[in-house]
């Protein structure tokens, strides 16, 4: 019954947080088993399409529409999904899930070594103090058991390791980090920033979107080459991923055991010790089942799959799901608001152009409800944007044929500037993730069911964002388009919540150390732990929480408590 090997820690999942847990725990002297459900992808050698030009692909990068429709209907909606990268996303037919057609949720996933850290947007932001206080102040959700000051040293720790480019702006609402250089803004972006500052009396600005790209070589990793093909895998190691950074660090210690193609079916709970006594793993290739045991378990399987493990681990002692004495497991699930925005022409910049592809946009930091509530909704949003110069792609869908039109396309096209919302979604009990009643996936695991819709607060936010976006881009030229329509849930790939942190075990799953209230040796540090969603990309916060929780686990193990 007990495992073939004994470990100090088992980490479930090798994505952004699992890789961090493996690195921190091995570096702190512990023997770690890292379990990944998907296949091995070796840094550099397995990035099969990285250097392939479009003319060598059967569908030139667009991909086979029939294949996308049949096997990748959800994944193919994603921004970074194309014919080069599609093998870094799940096959939707192998891994179906349940949702209502009236509230669609696009669940984007990558089941492979590195998880979504291979295909993420690299956007890297600290939360602000206001974000951690929000639940307490306006009563939505439960109060976070930590504040910005608790996490600040861990933001430092993570940023110094991963390498973040960004500009120091001195804004409370978007705290500066430990930056390693910054990418430049283009001429239209600089002009836009200046006009925003002037039009809004200094209360609105923009800055280069902060991202986990290297501007200089760092500890064996190369600097960004400005190709913007990140999701294919980067042999330079220039963006942060498990493969480029945390996995090599963990492997260097000699204390890491990695198994892939191995999915965690459930965790075994021992009521006598009130701890996890084993991790049941299915080898996908051999179909063999093994139970591994360890002193602690870090569940980093990605929000929805982490909740899946918890529900699949229900037992006689915990019939509602592992660690679910509160009853809130799966509830208060969130995804960011997206979809509203506007774009305009920027005709004054025809004499300017660029070289290279900057792999990050710009961000307009939150300006709503900052010092005081100044709208009819709670919380706030940011705008992400880009200034783009039309390429041959615009000619696909515009009039113009023949020799003269062909020659005119030699010149770079006209500039446009567009901004789109990323907004905070409130935690609501009715938004939830649970096991579907029927249906299993390719590996025989129960399907997940996702019930998610935006509420009134999000709708008001979208309307405000459209109005503001139109006014803002209008500073640059004639309006081209605007929208106030919500993108479907899942669009931002920031699904989080469902196993929230809180002070009270009756209304939360985890304490302030990401430790399950009910189970002393279980830590959850991926998106599932989040009690609110803020309005910036969450991955840096997940990484900081993970590193901090590993330090807490170390203290407990050294004290003999675990």
């Amino acid at each position, binding site marked *: 019954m007990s495992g073939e090997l004994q470990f100090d820690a088992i980490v479930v999942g090798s994505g952004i947080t699992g890789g961090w847990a493996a690195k921190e725990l091995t570096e702190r002297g512990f023997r770690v088993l890292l379990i990944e459900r998907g296949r091995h992808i070796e840094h550099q050698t397995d990035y099969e399409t990285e250097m392939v030009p479009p003319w060598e692909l059967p569908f030139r990068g667009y991909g086979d529409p*029939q294949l996308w429709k049949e096997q990748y209907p959800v994944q193919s909606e994603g921004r970074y999904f194309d014919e080069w990268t599609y093998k870094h996303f799940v096959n939707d037919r192998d891994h179906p899930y349940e949702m209502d057609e009236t509230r669609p949720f696009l669940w984007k996933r990558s089941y492979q070594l590195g998880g979504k850290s291979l295909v993420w947007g690299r956007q890297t932001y600290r939360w602000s103090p206001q974000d951690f206080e929000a639940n307490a102040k306006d009563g939505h959700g439960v109060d976070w058991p930590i504040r910005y000051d608790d996490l600040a040293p861990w933001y430092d720790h993570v940023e110094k390791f991963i390498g973040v480019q960004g500009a120091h702006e001195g804004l409370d609402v978007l705290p500066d980090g430990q930056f390693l250089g910054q990418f430049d803004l283009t001429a239209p972006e600089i002009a836009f920033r200046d006009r925003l500052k002037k039009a809004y009396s200094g209360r609105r600005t923009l800055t280069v979107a902060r991202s986990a790209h290297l501007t200089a070589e760092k500890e064996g990793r190369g600097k960004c080459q400005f190709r913007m093909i990140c999701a294919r895998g980067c042999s330079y190691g220039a963006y942060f991923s498990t493969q480029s950074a945390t996995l090599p660090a963990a492997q260097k210690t000699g204390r890491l055991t990695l198994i892939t193609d191995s999915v965690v079916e459930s965790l075994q709970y021992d009521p006598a010790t009130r701890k996890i006594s084993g991790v049941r793993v299915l080898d996908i290739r051999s179909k063999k089942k093994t139970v591994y045991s360890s002193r602690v378990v870090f569940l980093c399987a990605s929000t929805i799959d982490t909740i899946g493990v918890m529900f699949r681990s229900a037992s006689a002692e915990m019939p509602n799901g592992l660690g679910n004495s509160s009853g809130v497991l799966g509830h208060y699930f969130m995804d960011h608001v997206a979809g509203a925005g506007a774009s305009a022409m920027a005709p004054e910049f025809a004499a300017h152009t660029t070289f290279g592809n900057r792999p990050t946009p710009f961000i307009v930091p939150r300006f709503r409800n900052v010092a005081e509530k100044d709208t009819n909704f709670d919380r706030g949003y940011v705008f992400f944007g880009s200034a783009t110069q039309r390429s041959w792609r615009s000619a696909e869908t515009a009039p113009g044929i023949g020799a003269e039109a062909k020659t005119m396309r030699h010149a770079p096209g006209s500039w446009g500037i567009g901004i789109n919302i990323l907004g905070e979604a409130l935690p609501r009990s009715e938004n939830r993730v649970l096991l579907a009643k029927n249906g299993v996936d390719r590996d025989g695991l129960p399907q997940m069911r996702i019930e998610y819709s935006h509420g009134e607060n999000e709708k008001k936010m979208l309307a405000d964002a459209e109005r503001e976006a139109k006014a803002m881009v209008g500073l640059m030229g004639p309006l081209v388009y605007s929208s106030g329509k919500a993108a479907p849930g899942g669009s931002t790939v920031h699904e989080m919540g469902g196993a929230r942190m809180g002070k009270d075990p009756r209304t939360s799953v985890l304490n302030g150390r990401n430790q399950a209230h009910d189970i002393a040796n279980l830590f959850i540090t991926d998106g599932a732990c989040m009690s609110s969603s803020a309005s910036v990309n969450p991955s840096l916060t997940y990484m900081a929480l993970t590193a901090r929780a590993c330090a807490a686990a170390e203290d407990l193990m050294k004290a003999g408590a675990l």
Partner: protein
Amino acid sequence: MIGAQYLTRRSLLASSGVAAALLLPGCAPESSEPDETKSVALIMMLADIAIPTTDTLGAGGAETAKWVYQSLARGMRDGSLDTIVALEKELDLAVPGKGFRRAPKPHQVAALESLDRFVNGGKGAVLSPWATVKSLIFRAYYTSEVGASQELRYELVPGRFDADLPVKPGDRAWSTDANARNLDR
């Protein structure tokens, strides 16, 4: 969607009497079974007009046309092999005499230009048969080695980002720039 667009244009032409003959009851309908060789030949003709050879090769080669045909067969841009059939019918109505394929080149160019004026839309817009085929011709050409790296410039590894450079006359645009990268389906 494509059918609806086609019918609209037919009724516009019908009011001028040109298409009246086709609407008479009792007319045997043409076979709309797509013939790959014929379809590819038509696409080659259209691609050669749309992107002719200048100082670099144009899009009129067999490779481009076959790619367009295969992509339509797989449903790219919500097209299908029927798109080519529908397009040829529109083109036949836009030239005097015995159909597009046998028309003199100047008539063919004028016919295609008349359809091209209606091309104005991208993702989400209702695409006419020519808009769909044009989109695929452009994709095929500008992602080909000639189109991407000779007609325009292709740089696999830029190595740096220059945020603000003056546009120099004679410099050619990048086929690999950030704006060319986000691929609509």
